[in-house]
């Protein structure tokens, strides 16, 4: 069907966890690696190729499909692979196995203010952030007045961003991302910061985006927002897709499960 926006099948992602050993730092240094090379090679030979680093599976066999124009909310406790899923879908990191097919241009808003540099002015940061998110310079120039109007920082365009209040900062960052105009929008908990007015503005913008027929995948911890904005929800727990369906039903199951101390998968 040509109405599919995202098709995910058996997506899995693992990380190798290095444990701190014997007072050595957790990060790797060339010096340590070179010196430890003979020891490691000997160990590898002895154990017949088995390495003892621990593997942590952030996503396990996740499969779902999102049609064009759908707004899907992803809920789950912290650390259950929601951000990892979005990172894979926006090609920042690669899956370990499985795959996904994307039909359309993707705009990812995983963090507010990516690319902002405190020393540059608001105007320069708009261009910087816009270019980072994938907009061409002419596109940014065309939408410049709208972006500034959405953020409401007319007077402060030429002051360095380090002087902005948090609210202004977050409004500007979201304003740039909101005017991205992608066919698929991936949003990751960016409403956690900002006051109510800002959250209203963001929700309104996302509702406009979805009304225009764009696909939105939205991670949130706020159940009211998910139930208001997303007709469909996906519940991820410990990297696995537990539930996928109308958001009211999924939220109900999630809230039920939250009351119990242990979740049976």
């Amino acid at each position, binding site marked *: *069907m*040509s109405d*599919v926006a995202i*098709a*995910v*099948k058996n997506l*899995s992602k*693992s*990380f190798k966890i290095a444990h701190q050993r014997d007072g050595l730092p957790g990060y*790797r*240094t*060339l*010096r340590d*690696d070179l010196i430890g090379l003979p020891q490691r090679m000997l160990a590898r030979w002895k154990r017949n190729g*088995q390495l003892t680093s621990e*593997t942590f*599976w952030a996503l*396990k*066999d996740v499969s779902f*499909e999102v049609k064009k124009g759908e707004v899907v909310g992803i809920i789950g406790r912290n650390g259950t692979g929601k951000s990892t899923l979005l*990172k*894979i*879908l*926006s*090609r*920042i*990191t*690669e*899956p*370990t*196995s*499985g*795959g*996904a*097919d*994307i*039909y*359309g*241009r*993707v705009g*990812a808003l*995983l*963090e507010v203010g*990516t*690319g902002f*540099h405190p*020393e*540059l002015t608001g105007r*320069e940061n708009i*261009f*910087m952030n816009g*270019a*980072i*998110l*994938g*907009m*061409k*310079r002419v596109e940014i120039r065309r939408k410049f007045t709208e972006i500034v109007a959405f953020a409401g920082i007319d007077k402060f365009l030429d002051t360095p961003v380090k002087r902005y209040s948090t609210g202004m900062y977050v409004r500007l960052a979201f304003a740039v991302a909101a005017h991205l105009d992608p066919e698929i929008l991936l949003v990751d908990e960016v409403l956690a910061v900002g006051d109510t007015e800002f959250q209203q503005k963001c929700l309104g913008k996302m509702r406009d985006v979805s009304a225009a027929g764009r696909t939105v995948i939205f991670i949130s911890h706020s159940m009211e927002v998910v139930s208001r904005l997303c007709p469909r929800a996906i519940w991820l727990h410990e990297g*696995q897709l537990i539930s996928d369906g109308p958001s009211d039903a999924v939220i109900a199951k999630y809230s039920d499960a939250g009351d119990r101390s242990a979740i049976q*998968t």
Partner: protein
Amino acid sequence: MRFVGSPLRQLFFQFRAHGLPVEMQIALPFKSSKPLALRERYLKIAPLSTESPIVTTVAELSATPIRTQARQQKPTFRIRPTTGWAALNVRELWKYRDLLWILVERDTKLLYKQTALGVAWVVMQPLIAAIIFTVVFGRVARLPSDGAPYLLFVFCGLTVWTYFSQALQHAGNSLVRNAQLVSKVYFPKLLLPLAQTLRGVVDFTVTLVVLLVLMAIYRVPPTFRLAVLPVFLFFMTLTATGVALWFSALSVKYRDCTHALQYFIQVWMYASPVVYPISMIPEQWRPLFALNPAVGFIEGFRWAVLGHSVLNPNLLCITIVMSLVALFSGAFFFRRAERGFADII
């Protein structure tokens, strides 16, 4: 380049059997070539513990879309695990050229905003180094300078050298410095070191102006040979980019590479004829010496400015080949390492 046709395909399978990289695809930004789909190979999933609910399979993913009914419409992109060498993807770099330009602008502005002296600093750095070298190597050690005034002689070398050291230092840790960007946004990461080497060209132009001023002071007439300088600059950029890509990719995994880079730059300076002329090197060692691409550039500058040097077409060829080797090896290594950046940065 497209690897089609059976004789080349045979060659492929030979390579594959010997464990060498299976395919290197370079997508060029020509309208006629279609992007080749990456061919996935057998995936080896890391052995899992028995508690894991995942079924351990060794499966081959073909390049067909996941949904068979969607065959009419091709996905904009397919996300699959990749291993081994990756294509250079020049088309994507071209698509993001606006971002490259904006990164260059941003870093230029930042550099000038943050130093109190601004442009004066760019002028003074090589000049002060040249004066020190003139005193130490020219007067005290009395190194020969091919008949030219020592200050001018060493400044030619320093024009090239300042570009390399500045570009490498900034590009070497560009990925680590922009860790936030690397882990949160998708863009071709190759742009980050590339932006630094291109930004160095701006500083280089300023240093070049100083060189011209020095030429005027020493009454060395400018000749048509100066027109060759942009060509040298182009190859200098290629070399610097190649080495920068190596170091920036290594710095992501090994944080102590930034220290190694500083040491490397120092050693490299003394291995290049910045303070001494190449005529001091015995004839039979010169081709080996010319494996250092900086040799060709510095001698080229001296030829363009002073008019005489031992530069010959052989050495030039070696230099050009070495700069292309640096660039392509750096680019392929970087692209191969790029897939893991977001995870380990």
